[in-house]
Every structure is written in C-alpha cells, then in structure tokens.
C-alpha cells in the first residue's frame, strides 16, 4: 500500500525547509458517530524526521492535532539530493515510514 506520508523538503542556502502531510484519521476519542457511540481514539503519537542518521525534528502528538495532520519546520543543513527519513507510530502500534529526497 502507498505510504501515508507526503513530504516536500527543499534546500535553500544553509537551511532545508520541510513540509509534511500525513493521511491519518487522528481520532481523539471524544467524538461520537451517527449512532451516538464514541469513535475510539486513533492518532499518531510520535513522528520523527531524521537526516544523516540523527533526528532533526520529533513531534509528540495526540487527538488534538487535526485529521490528515500537517507540520512545517526547517533545519540547518541538508543538501539537494540528500535523504530525509520520516516515520510515525500511532496509539494502536501501527507505523509507517518513508524516505524523501531533498530538492
């Protein structure tokens, strides 16, 4: 199955800007469905960005983050053509990861 992670990483000068959009319901566990039953919590807990084997950004998330979550940040370093690894783990233990090339 295709990755849930979409990344755009662009290097300009000394900095690499990263934007990520991830397909995930991010159910908080506070919302009821049409039948009045609670939709169980189902959200990404940790999202990690690694460059050159080291984490450059780590997100600790829960149900307060929007569905199909988005995040943007930047780090010093990174060259065009280098790899950026992104991975997440959710509260059900599911994971996904992908490697993107810095543009």
């Amino acid at each position, binding site marked *: 199955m295709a990755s849930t992670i979409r990344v755009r990483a662009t290097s300009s000068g000394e900095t690499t800007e990263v934007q990520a959009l991830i397909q995930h319901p991010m159910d*908080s566990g506070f919302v009821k469905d049409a039948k009045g039953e609670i939709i169980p919590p189902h959200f990404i807990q940790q999202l990690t960005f690694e460059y050159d084997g080291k984490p*450059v950004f780590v997100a600790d998330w829960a149900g307060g*983050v929007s*569905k199909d979550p988005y995040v943007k940040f930047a780090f010093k370093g990174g060259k065009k053509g280098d790899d950026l690894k992104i991975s997440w783990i959710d509260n059900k233990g599911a*994971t996904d990861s992908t490697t993107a090339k810095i543009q």
Partner: protein
Amino acid sequence: MTTTDHRFSATRRLILQGAATVALIGLGNPWFGLAPAYAAANDKYPEEAFRQKSDAEAIKSLYGKTAEPSDKVKLDAPEIAENGAVVPVSVSTTLADVTSISFLVAENPVALVASYRIPAGTVPAIANRIKMAKTSNVIVVVEAGGKLYSATKNVKVTLGGCGG
C-alpha cells in the same frame, strides 16, 4: 493505518523501554526533573502530559516549571477559526537555545495538543494544524536555555451556519 515495518517498531519499542528503564534506574529521578538537554534527547512520549485536562497541569507535567509570557515568542493564529477542526497555528521565536516547543488549547478536553523537540540546528519555528473544541486561548510554550516562555492568543470558534 497499515503497519508497514514490524521489525522497526518492535526494535524501537525495546530501545525506548530500555532507555527509559536505564534513565530511571540510573538517575533515580522522574524524567521531567532532569536537565533540559537530557529531557530533549529523551525519546519518551509524554503520556502523562497528554492526560492532563488543564494547560497549567500539562505544562507542569512536560517541563516541571511555569512559563513567563515573552514578546520574543510570536504566535500566529486566526481571529476566528474557519472551522474548529482545522485551525492553522504557527510560532517563531528569536530566543536562543530552544529545545522544545508545545502548543496547548486551554478549553480542549485535553489541553496539550502537540509537543515538538528541537535538536540543535533546527530552526525554532513551526506551523501545524490543530483542533479547537470551542473559543479558547491558544498557548504556545517555548523551552529555551532551560527556561520556559509563552505567548497566548484568544481564537474564536463558531458553529457553522450554512455548513449543515
């Protein structure tokens, strides 16, 4: 969501558990009482903080200290959220030695929305999209040089009119 890499997650969990155990045993202190540098490097998911109802309790659980408002922390959030489900909120700061940034929504059932670790070399500026249950203060907390700074903005959330 599919589990795509079983080996990765299992190994990761072991490492996390191992590291946490060593840290606890080795130093004999609750992890949040440690020096900022260690806290930032620690891989542990702040489960306790995500259980707190109020922003004050969540901040205490995460950082073990209170934040002072600072105009060096710039919080960008709308006046009236287009929709409480997806509110774009961002922060930037001129403070040095930032190790952590967290977003909280005071009136959410769980105040802590997201907490980000900023390793050295990462720019202390983040944009993300958060949920807001109702009109509330949005608080961003920045841990810099071992101290805690914050900025707050009140964002209105309305129920849709024609959005059936």
